[in-house]
């Protein structure tokens, strides 16, 4: 392996940037942000250099002895293979674009230097997860990601909701992490090692070693992914986390942090047995469905995208559960491109609208913000899976995988969610960019500066072409034995090898698009489209369809969405989480009553304690 030291540099550059910013340049906004941007962009260039020198067809590790506990040695080491390289590219590449964009977005913020310090800390933690070669190290960076996202989500601390959202994100994540830690301890106890490669070798040699607890261990480890990748029922933190600045939403909730869970599952896929994978796939599918249903009811531009993220994450987890790490990672990568693009474009819209986020206040922005409109369109098409945009290829790969695993229910869910996705995305698209301006802000909207639009364009290119530039080849070399690399033309036509899933996917897109168009195009205006007489019957049909839709689909859908929302708000948030929180709080207050401050009570409780102790040990 050439340039073996480069990955270390890539990892530690952002940390260095944190140190330099906090210690020296906190006063200067520009210098701090340039240092932070420089660190991540240099990381991206170094990653390219490293890949250029080594290609993807390798797998190696570089490590330093860190600690040994009772005969077990744990290294601080980096895992270097196609999987981590691709993720490095995503994190530094997409992350770099977001860093540059932030330079424009946060330009008027007082504490921009602090923001970039946090951003670098986050990048460092995320790179640590990607590169970790053992569970312990991964867990440590996992938690660091949690802490730095806590800082970023709560960045605008003047808003109390930001503080609440940050705390909620952190605590919900920690809930999952404890399952994760428990799983790690269990794996450690059963297999005696924490290094991924050692574990894989051990399990390959003796698959029965995990024994009866294999399912439990797998599910506990999945708990970690459940928290980070916001899977049901730990998904509640993600929509609230939109309180952070928009670049944070793009970085954390599209490209990196939420992807960590899926990445971790793929990294440790060898640990999971079929039962646990089965359950994982259903949790993923359910999350995808639930989130898509909820997205339809939202009016906040960022929230819609956030729910869509949830839904897409559900897709990925479902695919991992269907034993398809390649399509899952493929979708993760393309999703990183187009979702970051969507978030950043939304951020551009929000800036253009002077921090208005309600879509019903927007309208007709395509004229005012042409570049943003273009990039948003590309993002939308990619998200919906319109050929030949990247989302089409990765979604098709997922559907094909579901069919190949003969999981017809999940295949159905996938197709249905694809239709829903198209529906709500285009709903957003039509309301925001078409029709009439629905507020003054919309009439005076303006295009964002170049430093913000350039990253948008870069991301748009990848959102368009991500499907056939060899991403599957690179992942395939990791997960599939004797993987044959496909040429670009072969990749381009890959979906046509399996016509049925492609047809279903495209059909879903068409249905969704049609519904969205018929309902929301010029929704607030144009009572009767009299422009073309020949289309009058069509309009009439539309009218019929509206009736039909109103009577059945919308009602049913409203009901479903309301149920989902109700479930989310009252059962999950209110009852379960509320009961846990309220219960602990209440029991804390009750227990505290013993603390009367009266010495005599204390003495009595002390003696009671002694009496109980003696009774239980000696009284029988």
């Amino acid at each position: 392996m050439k340039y073996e030291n480069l990955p270390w540099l890539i990892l530690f550059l952002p940390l260095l940037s944190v140190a330099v910013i906090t210690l020296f340049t906190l006063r200067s906004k520009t210098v701090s942000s340039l240092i932070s941007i420089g660190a991540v962009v240099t990381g991206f260039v170094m990653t390219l250099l490293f890949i250029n020198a080594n290609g993807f067809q390798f797998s190696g590790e570089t490590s330093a002895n860190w600690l040994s506990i009772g005969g077990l040695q744990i290294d601080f080491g980096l895992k270097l293979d196609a999987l981590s390289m691709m993720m490095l590219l995503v994190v530094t590449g997409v992350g770099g674009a977001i860093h540059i964009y932030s330079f424009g977005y946060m330009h008027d913020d007082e504490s921009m230097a602090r923001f970039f310090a946090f951003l670098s800390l986050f990048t460092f933690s995320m790179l640590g997860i990607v590169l970790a070669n053992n569970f312990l190290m991964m867990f440590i960076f996992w938690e660091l990601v949690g802490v730095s996202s806590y800082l970023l989500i709560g960045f605008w601390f003047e808003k109390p909701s930001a503080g609440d959202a940050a705390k909620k994100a952190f605590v919900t994540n920690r809930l999952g992490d404890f399952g994760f830690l428990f799983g790690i301890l269990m794996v450690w106890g059963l297999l005696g090692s924490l290094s991924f490669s050692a574990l894989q070798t051990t399990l390959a040699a003796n698959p029965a070693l995990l024994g009866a607890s294999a399912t439990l261990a797998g599910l506990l480890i999945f708990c970690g992914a459940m928290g980070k990748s916001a899977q049901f029922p730990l998904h509640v933190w993600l929509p609230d986390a939109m309180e952070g600045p928009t670049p944070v939403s793009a970085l954390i909730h599209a490209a990196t942090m939420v992807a960590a869970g899926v990445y971790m599952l793929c990294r440790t896929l060898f640990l999971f047995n079929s039962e646990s994978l089965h359950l994982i796939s259903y949790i993923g599918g359910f999350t995808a469905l639930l989130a898509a249903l909820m997205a339809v009811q939202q009016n906040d531009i960022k929230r819609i995208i956030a729910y869509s993220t949830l839904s897409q994450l559900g897709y990925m987890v479902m695919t991992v559960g269907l034993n398809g790490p390649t399509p899952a990672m493929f979708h993760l990568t393309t999703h990183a491109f187009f979702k970051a693009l969507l978030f950043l474009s939304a951020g551009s819209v929000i800036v253009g609208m002077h921090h208005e986020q309600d879509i019903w206040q927007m309208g007709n922005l395509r004229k005012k913000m042409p570049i943003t409109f273009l990039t948003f369109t590309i993002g939308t098409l990619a998200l919906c899976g319109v050929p030949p945009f990247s989302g089409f290829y990765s979604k098709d790969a997922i559907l094909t995988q579901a069919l190949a695993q003969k999981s017809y229910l999940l295949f159905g869910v996938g197709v249905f969610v694809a239709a829903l996705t198209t529906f709500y995305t285009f709903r957003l698209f039509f309301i925001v960019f078409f029709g009439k301006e629905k507020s003054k802000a919309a009439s005076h909207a303006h295009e964002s500066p170049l430093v913000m639009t350039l990253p948008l364009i870069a991301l748009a290119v990848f959102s368009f072409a991500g499907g056939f530039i060899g991403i599957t080849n690179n992942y395939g070399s990791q997960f599939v034995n004797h993987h044959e690399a496909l040429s670009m033309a072969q990749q381009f036509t890959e979906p046509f090898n399996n016509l049925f899933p492609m047809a279903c996917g495209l059909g879903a897109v068409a249905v969704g698009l049609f519904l969205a168009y018929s309902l929301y195009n010029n929704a607030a205006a144009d009572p009767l489209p009299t422009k073309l007489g020949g289309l009058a019957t069509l309009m009439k049909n539309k009218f019929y369809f509206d009736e039909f839709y109103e009577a059945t689909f919308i009602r049913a859908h409203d009901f479903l969405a309301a149920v989902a929302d109700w479930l989310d708000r009252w059962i999950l948030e209110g009852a379960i989480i509320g009961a846990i929180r309220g219960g602990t709080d209440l029991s804390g207050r009750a227990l505290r009553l013993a603390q009367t401050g009266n010495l005599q009570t204390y003495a009595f409780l002390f003696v009671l304690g002694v009496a109980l102790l003696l009774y239980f040990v000696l009284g029988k």
Partner: protein
Amino acid sequence: MHVSLHHYLFVSFMLFSLGLLGVIMRRNLLVIYMSLELMLNAANLALVSFSRFNNKLDGQVLVFFIITVAAAEVAVGLALIVALFRKRQSAHVEDLTSMKL
């Protein structure tokens, strides 16, 4: 019935329990403190009787230490109670509840 170790230990145990009762029942800090002395004395009695019946002198040495420590503890404790009394004009436990919950 011939007096044996059991008899002495029984007295010691009763003394200890009486002291314990005093600590949790009385409200006056000084009386609570006296009850604590009773408990220490019970330990002394147990040690001396074990010493006699086990034919070892270490118990008596320990008693010597306990008496000294008790004296030191009493001195500090009473000084503390006096200091508190000066502030509060009370030596009752109910009046000591400025910190709670």
